[in-house]
């Protein structure tokens, strides 16, 4: 019997359709159907100014908006040959790690709700709002920030941010203990999640699966360690690893990642306290639209003579490895922007970790994948 789980289904957490063939309660075959949220972001980007693409990036992955801004901005800066100042890099890492915690907390809320436990959804949303308050204090947005710019970030942090941040981090560390007690302390949770949705390391690599799913299979790969971008080589943290390759493993990896993010954030906050400075690159051409850029003739000159280039960036987004490829053929618009979404690839291996389990296992397994349809369909 084929059943459609989606596009309107509580399991999907977005807009996609999982067609499942079942016998009794056992899944025999699956066929994911994507594209219900395809908004043509790559195409629209070709008609947009480099800094206007950032608006789209927030909406590409709506639970990890600023990580996608970071991804795009790195590629765009490489394509445009712009180097941001150090403080901007640290602020970007601050944003990305905050976003990682926010995204993982959101995942926790949704995932545990899929298991039928309702309270963590509320707890997760409550704690996520604290992080969003911080975002709001320096970007103005809760979900869509438009904060990073080619050459830096839009504005510096308002005074007092770092102190408030430290308080939030302490609060969050206490909450993580509670989260763990609610889940790992529950016999039913372990019974539901152990040996579920197993995707072994060699399958992960063959299907290009990345992020917490890969690390839960025991593969040590984290772009922040392997290919340190921004300032990740200057902060001290550990890679979160599990070896069970199942839903519990992914849960443990994400929980550990949140703790490591807090660790990174504490270092970043300390650094930001000690090193004031500019947050935008000087001498940006005027057409790049930077608020602090010098206004004058040279902007136009630079525009005409701006060198062509190709930018490629890779970041460890909350869901996994994301890549951006930006082709600059001169002019104000990118010639072509191409993104690699981690969830897209993780979903394309779905038949490997769904077939053979119960129908009741589909929501926790898909929950542990952490689907964000916005970045899948783009």
């Amino acid at each position, binding site marked *: 019997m084929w059943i459609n789980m989606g596009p309107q289904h509580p399991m*999907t957490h977005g807009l996609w359709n999982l067609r499942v063939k079942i016998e009794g309660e056992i899944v025999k075959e699956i066929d994911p159907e994507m594209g219900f*949220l395809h908004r043509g972001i790559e195409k629209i980007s070709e008609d947009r100014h480099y800094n206007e693409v950032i608006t789209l990036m927030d909406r590409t992955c*709506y639970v990890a908006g600023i990580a996608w801004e970071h991804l795009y901005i790195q590629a765009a800066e490489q394509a445009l040959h712009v180097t941001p100042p150090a403080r901007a890099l640290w602020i970007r890492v601050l944003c990305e790690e905050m976003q990682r915690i926010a995204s993982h907390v959101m995942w926790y809320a949704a995932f545990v709700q899929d298991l039928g436990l309702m309270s963590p959804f509320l707890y997760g949303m409550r704690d996520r709002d604290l992080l969003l308050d911080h975002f709001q204090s320096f970007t103005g947005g*809760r979900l869509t920030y438009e904060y990073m710019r080619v050459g830096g970030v839009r504005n510096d942090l308002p005074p007092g941010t770092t102190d408030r941040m430290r308080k939030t981090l302490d609060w969050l560390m206490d909450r993580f203990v509670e989260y763990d007690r609610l889940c790992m302390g529950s016999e039913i949770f372990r019974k539901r999640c152990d040996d579920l949705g197993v995707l072994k390391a060699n399958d992960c690599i063959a299907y290009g699966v990345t992020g917490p799913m890969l690390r839960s299979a025991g593969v040590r790969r984290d772009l922040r360690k392997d290919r340190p971008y921004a300032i990740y080589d200057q902060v001290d943290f550990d890679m979160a690893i599990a070896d069970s390759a199942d839903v519990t493993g992914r849960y443990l990896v994400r929980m550990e990642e949140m703790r490591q993010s807090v660790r990174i954030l504490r270092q970043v906050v300390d650094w930001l306290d000690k090193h004031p400075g500019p947050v935008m690159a000087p001498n940006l051409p005027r057409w790049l639209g930077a608020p602090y850029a010098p206004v004058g003739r040279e902007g136009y000159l630079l525009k005409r003579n701006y060198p062509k280039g190709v930018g490629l960036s890779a970041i460890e987004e909350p869901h996994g490895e994301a890549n951006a490829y930006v082709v600059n053929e001169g002019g104000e618009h990118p010639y072509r922007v191409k993104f690699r979404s981690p969830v897209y690839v993780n979903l394309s291996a779905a038949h490997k970790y769904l077939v053979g389990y119960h129908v009741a296992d589909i929501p926790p397994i898909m929950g542990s994948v952490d689907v964000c349809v916005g970045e899948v369909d783009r």
Partner: protein
Amino acid sequence: MSAPAKAIEAPPTVAIPSAGVAEVTAPAVPFLEIEGLRSQQFIPAAKEALTSLLAERAHGKLIRPVFNWAGRNSLFPLHWGLACCAIEFASAFGARWDAERFGVVPRSSPRQCDLLIVNGTVTWKVAHKLITLYEQMPEPKWVIAMGNCATGGGPFRTAYSVVPGVDKLVPVDVYIAGCPPRPEALLDGILKLEELIRERQE
């Protein structure tokens, strides 16, 4: 802006925006049958008898306000997340905003809902599913277009795959601006809808 891609013509199962007239093929919905149609023949007679007996004013003063009160205080939205606004939609049910204070409880089945909150970008691919869901909801029902995408396409209005405004597909009662609107804005929209229902004359 450059000229539209005029070469586009409508394939059988999907609507293409640039041909001037777009067609959305709502698949079937053949399994719907509105119960109560059978009894409608003798309702008018009974109604006439009652109006002469009890007077229309009593109905307007007593019955309708009660039902309107009930209707506006228990709006069950469909549990459906489309895009970015769905996250704020979820936040509105979180601990800080807690939309359940107003009796708003999301249900997963359209049969049990009376409010369709279109929280995100609607693409042409999902358009007929949206219409199907709308038609599966029993009357009386309302629609809230949450966010700029649902209102008019938002930042993606130029895209080839996006419906520029969900009001092209289903009748919309309340539009909420914002990209995405904050949870307060969503609650405000729901309260505005409650005002609309209060004045409803049925």
